């Protein structure tokens, strides 16, 4: 019998989900995280979950793991001391970056730029040059390079990056520099930009490759250690790491390209949410993962998470595919304050974090946080203990919120409601970025709140966006581990391929795409995925010639063969029109070609609840005074474990479970489905009819914007 295990290591808890690959039966466990050496917690968890399942850990043959090691390394600035080799004349490529100063007009006055991840003192130049077309303009001066590399020896670098100009067009110099570097600095890992991200734009390529080097030694150590420890209890087990794009990487590939893991943690949550939502019959979904300091949101359409071509962690943005997750500095620990001059109510982005945490934690925090407001409002009932054992101090919460109330001249509960409303609004801002701004109408999507505090805000967020139902999955905390366990092996290859349509052909494009697919398949075949089980998808980035944007368009090879490049341009025009309300009559240009390959997923049988009538009376445990929508109400408190399928919970209500609390607002009703999800709808809700037509009506067509384009095309060259 074979088993696979999903493992999510969070700041407080390590969640595990064990799956019997044949029957689909699952078992879960939750143990405290062990930050000093995370593998300790993981092993404790494995023993616990295996005990529950009554199996020997040796029966586990795949472990899928979402990790925040790479992210934390960047956020805490504790990565490797990196060396960098650039083309002569470009030593300061990271120092200059894109010359961008954040913060609007006058923003420079308060802007202090952080130091580059590869210090200038450890950056050397290679005398060489390749043109944008890939011709060698100046051959590499190997002798001079060896000398410069030797100077790096004394700087104690732990990793080296090579990023040369135009290497996306010709990687021969980068490869040669690596050979020489391995001779001169034996034992130092070398990342080259043409392998990590073979795309145009020198700063982005360099910073991405340097980020890779920066987190690499640490991720490598972590993965090796975890693999060794796993080997002790489950010999021969295969370890996979969840990538930012929601696919799985082998442990060795993860250690080599760790820049692809920066969103590994949150991607697990989205994947888990996706899995639950598809099961429940809602393939269009907005996900809201509320943590202590921040909230991650994403959009899932037709059962697939939207991907983005860049990943941002702190003030570092790299070119690596990731699930399009937007993060807003609004979470349970976000601090509310009233600035002296404006007397406005602001929530976040400052956070009380886990330490000291909200005032109610009684660990020395005195600033009012969102969690404190939720306590004042009665959304976290007196009997609720966070994570099962932490008692909340209501008086401290009250005293903290009073500070804000006094500043605003409001009652304490009105101030608390203000905090709750503002933080919801901040989350809505992030949700708009992934929906409305991408041309998707949130009213066509369901919404799922998870993470410990997500279900407190879920109902309110759905109401603000018109996204129904508001779904609260069972065990909102183990969603990430579920995502880890259900993920398929995935890999992709991309290449910058800037060509006007008139200068290339469908045949040429197809040839490159197939090469990329073959290349990408090799990796996952090594993972033991059979050739016949590999699913390949093709994507190209396209724009109108002269534009800076690029839109990703999925390609069906058969369609490309049949209709030629028109198969691409038609789709692009449609997408352009959907996003920006107009299309242009200009020539198209290819920018990047990409092939993604994926192994088969896994079937999981979910626990099905016993069906029952609509009356949830059997699950009632208490009554709680609450303040909702500006009114005092008495909310019925339910124990989630006792709810049955078919139960209807009328708001105002609060549903408790071990690590989470769900708020159901007045005039809303939550229905429990067979999988234990609570689906919240406003009373009297009627599904929107023909959502497509409605979506269209919100966008006015740009009248005749296309026409003058034709007239304007000819005189462009200005020939006399």
């Amino acid at each position, binding site marked *: 019998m074979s088993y696979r295990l999903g493992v999510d290591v969070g700041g407080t808890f390590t969640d595990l989900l064990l799956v019997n690959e044949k029957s689909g039966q699952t078992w879960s466990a939750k143990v405290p995280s062990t930050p000093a050496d995370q593998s300790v917690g993981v092993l404790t968890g494995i023993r616990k979950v295996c005990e529950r399942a009554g199996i020997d850990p040796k029966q586990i043959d795949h472990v899928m793991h979402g990790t925040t090691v790479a992210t934390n390394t960047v956020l805490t600035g504790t990565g490797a001391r990196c060396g960098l080799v650039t083309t002569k004349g470009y030593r300061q490529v990271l120092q200059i970056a894109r010359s961008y100063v954040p913060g609007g007009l006058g923003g420079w006055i308060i802007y202090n730029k952080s130091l580059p991840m590869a210090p200038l003192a450890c950056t050397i130049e290679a005398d060489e040059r390749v043109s944008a077309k890939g011709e060698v303009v100046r051959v590499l001066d190997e002798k001079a390079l060896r000398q410069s590399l030797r100077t790096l020896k004394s700087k104690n670098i732990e990793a080296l990056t090579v990023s040369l100009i135009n290497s996306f067009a010709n990687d021969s110099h980068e490869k040669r520099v690596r050979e020489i570097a391995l001779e001169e600095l034996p034992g130092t890992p070398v990342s080259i930009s043409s392998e990590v991200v073979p795309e145009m734009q020198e700063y982005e390529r360099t910073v991405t490759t340097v980020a890779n080097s920066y987190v690499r030694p640490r991720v490598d150590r972590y993965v090796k250690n975890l693999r060794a420890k796993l080997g002790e209890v489950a010999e021969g087990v295969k370890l996979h790491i969840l990538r930012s794009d929601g696919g799985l990487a082998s442990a060795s590939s993860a250690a080599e390209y760790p820049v692809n893991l920066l969103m590994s943690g949150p991607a697990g949550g989205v994947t888990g949410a996706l899995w639950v939502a598809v099961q429940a019959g809602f393939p269009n979904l907005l996900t809201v993962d509320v943590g202590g300091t921040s909230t991650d949101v994403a959009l899932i359409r037709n059962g697939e998470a939207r991907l983005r071509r860049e990943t941002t962690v702190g003030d570092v943005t790299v070119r690596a595919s990731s699930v399009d997750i937007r993060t807003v500095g609004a979470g349970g620990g976000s601090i509310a304050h009233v600035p002296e001059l404006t007397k406005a109510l602001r929530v976040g982005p400052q956070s009380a974090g886990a330490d000291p945490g909200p005032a109610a934690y009684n660990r020395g925090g005195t600033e009012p946080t969102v969690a404190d407001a939720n306590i004042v409002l009665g959304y976290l009932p007196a009997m609720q203990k966070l994570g099962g054992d932490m008692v909340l101090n209501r008086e401290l919460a009250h005293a903290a919120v009073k500070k804000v109330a006094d500043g605003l001249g409001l009652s304490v509960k009105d101030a608390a409601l203000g905090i709750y409303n503002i933080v919801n609004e901040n989350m809505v801002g992030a949700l708009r970025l992934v929906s409305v701004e991408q041309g998707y109408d949130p009213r066509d999507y369901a919404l799922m709140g998870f993470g410990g505090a997500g279900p407190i805000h879920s109902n309110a967020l759905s109401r603000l966006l018109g996204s129904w139902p508001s779904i609260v999955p069972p065990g909102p905390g183990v969603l990430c581990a579920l995502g880890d366990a259900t993920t398929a092996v995935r890999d992709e290859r991309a290449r910058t391929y800037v060509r006007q349509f008139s200068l290339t052909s469908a045949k040429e494009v197809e040839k490159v795409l197939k090469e990329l697919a073959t290349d990408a398949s090799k990796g996952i075949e090594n993972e033991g995925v059979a050739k016949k089980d590999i699913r390949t998808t093709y994507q190209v980035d396209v724009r109108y010639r*002269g534009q800076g*944007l690029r839109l990703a368009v999925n390609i069906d090879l058969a369609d490309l063969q049949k209709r030629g490049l028109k198969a691409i341009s038609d789709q692009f025009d449609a997408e352009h029109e959907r996003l920006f309300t107009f299309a242009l009559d200009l020539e198209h240009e290819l920018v990047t070609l990409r092939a993604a390959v994926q192994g088969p997923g896994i079937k999981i049988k979910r626990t099905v609840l016993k069906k029952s009538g609509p009356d949830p009376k059997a699950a009632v445990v208490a009554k709680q005074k609450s303040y909702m929508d500006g009114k005092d109400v008495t909310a019925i408190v339910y124990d989630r474990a006792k709810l049955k399928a078919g139960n209807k919970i009328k708001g105002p209500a609060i549903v408790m479970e071990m690590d989470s609390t769900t708020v159901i607002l007045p005039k809303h009703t939550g229905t429990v489905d067979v999988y234990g999800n609570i689906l919240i709808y406003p009373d009297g809700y009627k599904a929107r009819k023909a959502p497509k037509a409605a979506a269209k009506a919100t966008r006015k067509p740009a009248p005749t914007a296309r026409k003058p384009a034709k007239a304007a095309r000819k005189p462009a060259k200005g020939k006399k």
Partner: protein
Amino acid sequence: MPATIVQRNKKAFKKTKVDTVTIDIIESALRNARYEMDTVLFRTAMSPGIREQHDEFPMIANTEGKMVVGQFGSFIWGFMDGYDGTVEEGDIFLTSDPYSVNGAISHANDWLMLMPIYRDGRIIAWSAMFGHMTDVGGKVPGSLPTDGTTIYEDGLVIPPIKIFKAGVLNEDVLRVVLHNCRLPQWNLSDFNAITAALRTASARCIEIAERFGDDVFYSAMDAMLERNKRAMKALIRQNVPEKKQHFEDYICDDGLNLGPYRIRCSMWREGDKCIFDFSGTDPQSMSSINFLLNEEMFKMFAGIYMIMVFDPQILFNDGFYDLMEVRIPAGSLLKPLKPAALSCRTHALGRIFDILAGLLGQGNPDFMCGAGFSDSPHFMYSGYDKNGEWYQLYQITFGGIPGKPFGDGPDGHSLWPSFTNVPNEFLESYFPLRIDIYETIADTGGAGKNRGGNGLRIGYRFLEPGEISIHDDRWLTYPWGANGGEPGVRSRKLLQRADGTEELLPSKIDHVKVEANDLLIADTWGGGGWGDPLERPAEQVAFDVEAGLVTVGGARRYGVVIKADGTVDEAATKTLRTDMAKKRGPKKIFDRGFDSIEELKARCKAETGFDPPATPRFTKWAAVAAAALEKKAAKEKKGAKAA
């Protein structure tokens, strides 16, 4: 005649009391809408200046046209005064004429578009946006002729017109406009992009009004303005003294060999009101460096500067406009009379920020920044390539951010909001050139406790014959240091011909012919330093030396002696610092790097390789016209008093 607003629904908005939280929510919803305008624009615009460098400015205003969210303050009043027609539902307006909108936009490259946002037959808000077009015709590619003497030479000037009438595009007019531009498809795409951004803002405002009700939306915007006014009132009271402060700075030359042009401003407070008076500013130039400065826009600059320095939490909008008064003499460099050329106004526009730093800083030297990268130098390169295709590059470059009370100035960065450089690999892929050098220049940032950022060096290797233009400044005067900091190093342009000869190029010049394999080394200037350089921790100086941002020789400006192994020679440093402290005079609030213009001009040739420019003089017609205007204004004032 101002514009006539046509509204089907005559019902007035009811001012209601809106609770704080609702105001905050509407505020953040409007802020989101404004950022969404940017996103929509960036993604579909084609001019690299807009798309890559973000030379564009969105705004949402209330029914009266006051900016509620945005950056440069409202330009709706200026437009309404200059437009002689009706404003109706579905209309979108376009203009590129600075003179018709009292400088709301300041050269013809900026296309300004405005849209009244209607709901149920009445205007609930305005959206507006302007962006810099790569080319709008005229005598030189890029439409920024240094030697232009009237606005007619700059390029096509569009008066305020209704480009969409009740939602229908005026195609003929657009065709005429595009026909006069060298890269019409870029203009068209940018035009469409701005239109899409305006419509996005419109949709968002309507949604907010639907959610909260028109009266609440109206009243909340009012409250946002009021909130800002209250905050600014306190800031002005705290930071602007009643005693007059004066400050002056310079534009080095006008491209026609006259200069430096002085910009002078006085600032003082009367009650709650802060007054800025530009009397003493030099007359308008015969060339195109004139900057038609809109008074309201200047208020916004001043307000933002105060907010950023003293309390960055405040959201800025037009609410505080009544608290400021700006006086600019007609016929001066900052209030030129039509038809003076305006295209190269960027230098004076940038310099305004140094003036503000100098003015506001005097009262609070601890909060004052050095002189910075107060310009956006342009580089242009155009011609026909091997295949007979026209290429035309317009690029904004960057330099050293000044040292500031809060830390060092970044090297080779932008003072302008959200501007970014264009990736060199992108340039090399689309234009016949290679960028052989792209680095900041050691020691060009002014020494200070907080170092000024280094200037940027770009080595352009041309691969096709063509013509280049350079628009830069600070080749003669220095970016001054503040509060004990030293000035930064000047700019410089050197052309190395493929045949081995070299020539220095002036800082403002068009039509320089280049051949394949010529190399232009374009150096911008460094930012001024802040605070006493002798107080900068020696290890920090050593760090910069190891990084190559300061040389071993340059470290001595900080009184720091670096040993051969790169570490600090503690003993020698102590001696040198003591010695330097003794020799120098009292701490200077400003260090301009010269004593007087005469003294500066005397060493001009030796230091820069160029003869000093001649003293600016008034154009005759402008002098006469300005005098007439002054007389008229005085008469009106008298009349008003009598009444």
